[in-house]
């Protein structure tokens, strides 16, 4: 029963959504209700995750675990934002500007570090793997696109070269199309597996 009940709920919900899309005129209202249930459940799940995160970090602090200072900062920031949001309201311009003033530089700095980390990892990748087909192809492709990114080659007014550049710049598009086709096929397959009960992501 523990396994059958979730299976029945999942399959019936999926079937109902599919049928609702095909018979939109008559079932759209009921479909909206089901989608609202999903929204509410996802919001509650977010609250559960928040509570779990808070309890975990409080546990780290009380037990004096190594690096608990970071947990202390996380709990303090969470409580401060929560209390300020309750008191000032989430529409308060000062509150929004204050939060944005903290978030934007932090997240931008993290994103900027990605470039540094990627450069470092590319060197490590080459030194650990040595020279083989994978590393050489990676290096050549990265080198070509970095050169193209400079825009210097495109400035050369030579028709055959422009065609070559265009062909090279089209390579990522080929990969993106293949990726999208693969994603679509995977989604269809996964949906079918969930419908027939072969895939149970909700299971333990």
């Amino acid at each position, binding site marked *: 029963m523990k396994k059958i009940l979730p299976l029945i709920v999942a399959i019936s919900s999926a079937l109902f959504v599919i049928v*609702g899309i095909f018979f*939109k*005129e008559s079932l*759209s*209202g*009921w*479909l*909206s*209700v089901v*989608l*609202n249930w*999903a*929204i*509410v459940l*996802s*919001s509650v799940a977010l609250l559960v995750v928040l509570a779990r995160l808070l309890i975990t970090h409080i546990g780290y602090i009380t037990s004096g675990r190594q690096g608990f200072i970071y947990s202390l900062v996380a709990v303090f920031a969470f409580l401060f934002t929560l209390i300020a949001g309750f008191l000032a309201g*989430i*529409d308060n*311009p000062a*509150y*929004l*500007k204050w*939060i*944005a003033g903290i*978030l*934007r530089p*932090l*997240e*931008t700095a*993290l*994103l900027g570090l990605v*470039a*540094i980390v990627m*450069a*470092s990892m*590319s*060197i*490590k*990748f*080459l*030194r*650990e*793997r*040595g*020279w083989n087909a*994978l*590393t050489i192809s990676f*290096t050549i492709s*990265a*080198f070509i696109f*970095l*050169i193209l990114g*400079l825009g210097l080659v*495109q400035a050369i007014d030579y028709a055959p070269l422009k065609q070559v550049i265009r062909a090279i710049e089209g390579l*990522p*598009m080929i990969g*993106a*199309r293949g*990726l*999208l086709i693969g994603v679509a096929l995977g989604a269809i397959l996964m949906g079918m597996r969930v419908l027939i009960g072969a895939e149970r992501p909700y299971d333990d």
Partner: protein
Amino acid sequence: MTDGLNMQKCPKCGKDNLAHMTHCVHCGTAMEDLFHFDGQIETPESSNEEPIAALPFIFDEMQSTPQSDDDSPSRDSSAEKKATDEDGSQSPDWLERVRERVRAEDDASGLLTKGLSALQERLESDEKGDAESQYQAWLDEIREKAEREKAKQAERLQPSPLDEQGVPEWLRRIRALHPDADEGVEELKTEDEWTEEELEELRRRELGDDYVPNHMNEQTAEDDTDEPEEDDFEPDIEHNIPEDYEDLTTAEAQSRKSKVSPAPIDEALDNSPEETGFVMMGEPKLDPDEVFDTKAVEALLAQSDQSPPARKKASRDAEKEAILQDLVILRGQHEKVALLKALISEEGRPLPSSGEIKTKKRNHSRLIIGLAFILVLLFSIIFIPKNMSHKTPISVPQERFTLHLDAMDANKSLLLVMSYSAASATELEALTAPVIQALEDKGLSWQAMTLRMDGLWLAESLFEKADLKNPPAPVFLSGGQYAMLNLAIKPDDQTELEEQKVLKEGMPKFDDFDYVLLVTDSSLSVRGWLEQVAVNQPSINTFAIISQKEAVAIQPYFDSGQILAYLSGMQGLAGAGSYAGIHQSVFHVGLILMILLLILGFLLRPGSDEQPKPETGGQA
């Protein structure tokens, strides 16, 4: 005793005497004229001087009964051989033939030949009337002996504590070392079945003063005897595997507690403790897997033609060699057992290498490279002016976006959907702000909606950058793609279900908008919109502003016409005066640094940190 033997009458007293007697046992009269062997070839007088030393052996052989002497044939032959060798070179022809045949044969077949030779001798010396019965008896005896030899060989191949006759392994080894004593034992007991009393007697005789009665250790013996029964005759070799002489003495003391006593081995060693050479054994030269054989014992028989002291010494050496072989074999087995025990005891323990503290070599090269990377970028940001004229070709989506924006009428409405993080805000706001300004200039109605909570305060920043006086308040749509799908499905306004919508107050309706502008840093958001919402709202035209790293992922949707146009990264709105806020010079510096790093990484010490490749598969 004289039944079945030929008798002769004394010519003087007339009483019976044995046929081969030279003098009457009653009156002492010489009967040499009457003495002769049946089948004996008459030789010249000189040959009548048959070796005197051989006669007692012949007499003994003649007097002994076949039933009580199992190994008489071999003994006869050996005795005759001894006699002949001691005597000199002269020997009868028949004896020479027997010797040659014995030399030609080996092992059990040699014994069989010896037995047959002795049988022939007996047949020649016996009377014709008793020949058949004695022949049959000897045949039976020889057959029995041959079967016994086969059984012993089988036991050697498959060592077991007890054979089918109940003889322990140690006793079989002792028998192999002391064939004469073995014969004596068998003489005492014609039936080859050992009882406890007989074993006790044998131990007492072999051990002498060191003998401890078995009943003294009855309890220990019972415990020890239970194990072999449970183990199905698992050979117990621990009790007689001395590592060296000290272990041997220890084993001797311990062996008294066990039923299967190593006393015979100890006795054999005690005969010449210094000569056993346990401490002198050195490295074993024998194959540990080799099984014990009786070649050393047979070598004793081959050396029997030596003088008595030399023969004794040779016998002792051969005995010692046999014991050493035995001990070396067992020692090899013992070493294997010790190795197996060590492996079993080490099972499950962590490998020594895993417990070692790895002295990781600190490599600061990557830290130095990273710091240099950051420093160069920092200097380029500070010292290179931002608004330099960089002309890059206008892309097709960029051109289309400009054309569509110019073609928008003032009576149209646009929904601005925001879904990006603060990290991408700088890039996307630089692209979006000119578009919003153009919409405001046209007098187009528009509304902002965010799919992320942080979009609420990021929208404030965007509006500030667009320099809007009274921007519309953004709406937060919780639930992500579920909420978008929920909005896209048009419920029947007449039903009561419309009243049950969770987020209906202030929520925009897609039907009210002609355009949708997606501002996002994730291609998933664009894809979710196109797959979930746009199919249910075919009248809405979709535009997108996306970060540069994700632009390639939405290009297929642009090619298919699902997106009318999009802006990304450096390809901002044409004529906006800047390239989406990206510092072109710093961007180029960053690209150059990346190229240099790739070249350095490719050329400098390639493979110096190379790791061993996994045998199967592996991450690319």
